[in-house]
């Protein structure tokens, strides 16, 4: 635990044993017959000004994590401590006050802006909700924030449909930034954008983070985007974190076979280096009936017998955490006990 949030000693967000189960109803009386375990017991921490990358294939539950952390959906179990307060059981009024410090940027810049509101109204809405300033001051703050996010303040009365995708994403960032929060969930903020625009947005996010000491939970489905912006990276598979380590450490020395497979898919801008590609067989299993034991065993190239039966434990190698029987055996030298 000592190496958690290594850069800053102060912990901003601590998520413990977070679970999100969605009931599946069937039959005559709509009885709950099963649960989709979108998020199944995950824990992590984010320090002040730190960025945690959260990576996984689509459907692995990473967006659910992002929404649960902000309590946009109520977690089934677990605690989310933000600045020491447990959000999961906070009364509505207190939660609303807390929202000034934690915000979210969405994936789709076309669906994330209300088409009936002007840019000024969209960005200024947060100020109106939390009663900051009067009309004039608010307009000034909106203009100011637009400028910070690389938007021309003259566009304040325009409607979202008059902007390009990249500009719209900037509006979304301005909306999250206007209250000067301490923490922002970035829910795949660039995956819907053209590649040429992606780097601009990423650069903007990095710049803002350094200027305002922001902490990010940066969700993405490919490692290359996350690499650049994150201090630490967590890899998720089917509702569980399989590996969590310092960004540079993870890329240099990926331990989990799933992380290795993901990394081998990242293109390297070096034609002389021939990579060995690990291709995963089959599809992601349904979270409705996740495989027993280690959830990755159905597609794992290294799977051994025990993987089918026993869930792997957390193995902490100097702050580099991994959940894998095979790795555990290699490192500790002893066969994993059941």
């Amino acid at each position: 635990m000592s190496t958690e949030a290594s850069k800053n000693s102060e912990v901003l967000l601590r998520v413990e044993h977070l679970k999100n189960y969605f009931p599946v109803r069937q039959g005559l009386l709509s009885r709950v017959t099963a649960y989709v375990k979108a998020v199944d017991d995950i824990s992590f921490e984010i320090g002040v000004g730190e960025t945690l990358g959260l990576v996984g294939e689509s459907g692995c539950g990473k967006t659910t994590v992002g929404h649960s952390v902000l309590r946009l959906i109520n977690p089934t179990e677990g605690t989310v401590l933000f600045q020491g307060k447990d959000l999961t059981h906070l009364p509505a009024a207190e939660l609303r006050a807390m929202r000034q410090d934690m915000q979210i940027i969405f994936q789709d810049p076309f669906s994330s802006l209300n088409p009936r509101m002007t840019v000024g109204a969209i960005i200024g809405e947060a100020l109106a909700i939390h009663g900051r300033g009067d009309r004039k001051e608010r307009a000034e703050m909106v203009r100011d924030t637009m400028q910070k996010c690389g938007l021309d303040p003259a566009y304040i009365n325009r409607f979202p449909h008059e902007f390009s995708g990249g500009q719209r994403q900037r509006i979304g960032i301005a909306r999250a930034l206007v209250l000067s929060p301490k923490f922002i969930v970035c829910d795949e903020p660039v995956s819907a954008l053209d590649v040429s625009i992606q780097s601009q947005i990423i650069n903007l996010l990095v710049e803002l983070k350094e200027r305002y000491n922001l902490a990010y939970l940066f969700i993405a489905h490919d490692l290359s985007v996350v690499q650049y912006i994150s201090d630490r990276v967590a890899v998720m598979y089917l509702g569980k974190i399989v590996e969590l380590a310092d960004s540079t450490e993870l890329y240099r020395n990926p331990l989990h076979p799933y992380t290795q497979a993901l990394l081998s898919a990242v293109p390297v801008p070096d034609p002389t280096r021939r990579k060995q590609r690990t291709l995963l067989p089959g599809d992601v299993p349904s979270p409705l009936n996740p495989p027993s034991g280690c959830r990755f065993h159905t597609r794992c190239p290294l799977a051994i017998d025990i993987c089918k039966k026993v869930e792997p434990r957390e193995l902490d190698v100097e702050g580099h955490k991994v959940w894998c029987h095979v790795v555990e055996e290699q490192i500790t030298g002893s066969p994993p006990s059941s």
Partner: protein
Amino acid sequence: MILGLFGLLVGLAGWHAGTLWDTLAHTLEKLFGANVPYTLRDLDFLVSTLFLLGMLAALVLYSGLSCQRIRQADRTAQGPERQWSIVKRQFLKNRLAVAGALIILALYLVAFLCPFLAPYDPVEQGDRVQERLLSPSAEHLLGTDRFARDVFSRIIYGSRISLLVGFLAMGLAVTLGTAVGAVAGYYGGWVDSVIMRFVDMMLSFPTLILIITVIALWRNQSIWIIITLIGLMSWMGVARLVRGQFMALKEREFFQAARALGAGTGRLIFQHLLPNSLTPIIVSATLRVGNTILLEASLSYLGLGVQPPTPSWGNIVYDTKGNLFTEWWMPLAAGMAIVITVVGYNLLGDGLRDALDPRLRE
């Protein structure tokens, strides 16, 4: 020309305001007196109210539009085309829709200008011996009925009933339906289930028969009761529509963003969900007006609607259907007025839908 038109409107407004004042006391007395059949003066009151409200709405709309135009002028010329102008162009391109709009406009004008347009008093009976059941002529364009009343004048005055019923019943239905649908869609879960089962049940009643039941049992055929009943039986479609819209919008990221900002229920509904549901609500409201008019006409045709001597198109047909094989022009002309009006509303609704629905836009 615009000044002249404006002068005309102001004049009309003044005239209607006068009528309004004149009939207010009379109508209040009516409202609280039991079972007094209402008269043409009540109608004057209603129509005047509507007209003044319409004027007010037009003024607000006009000032809003000119504000927008000024703001627009500030912007660079090569900016993307305004959403509204696309809609306007699409609508004007659709000739049928424009025709529908013109029909409705004409209906409104006729309803407001009844006293100037109708050559005779619609209820005053002429000489029952000499002027009864006359054929169409220059004096009586559509002849006279068995009480020697001028049928043409009666049809002109009948437009008021259709206008009122269409407007008020639809207004009631849309308000009620939006409220119910909004609650079901916003809260979801068991609230939604309970409400939607109730909507299903309401949809199972054959509307006309239930209205007949209530009207017959309460022995009250005032236009208020009829409009209320029609409104109370027509909101279910709107409720379903609004619920569906809300459900879909709740999945959109801007709604989640507003929640993340800490927006409360009121703001979420009135700032985010409702404005984005307005387009389909307006379209369905327009398409529904026709149905409410048809419902009133059917009631009147059964003799259970608006009571004579007040003319409504439905009760003119009811009154004169016995003359179908001889003085056929009377029932057929009154019925034709209904058809034209409802066609107008439906053309307008179709046109609005085509213009506002981006899926159909090339």
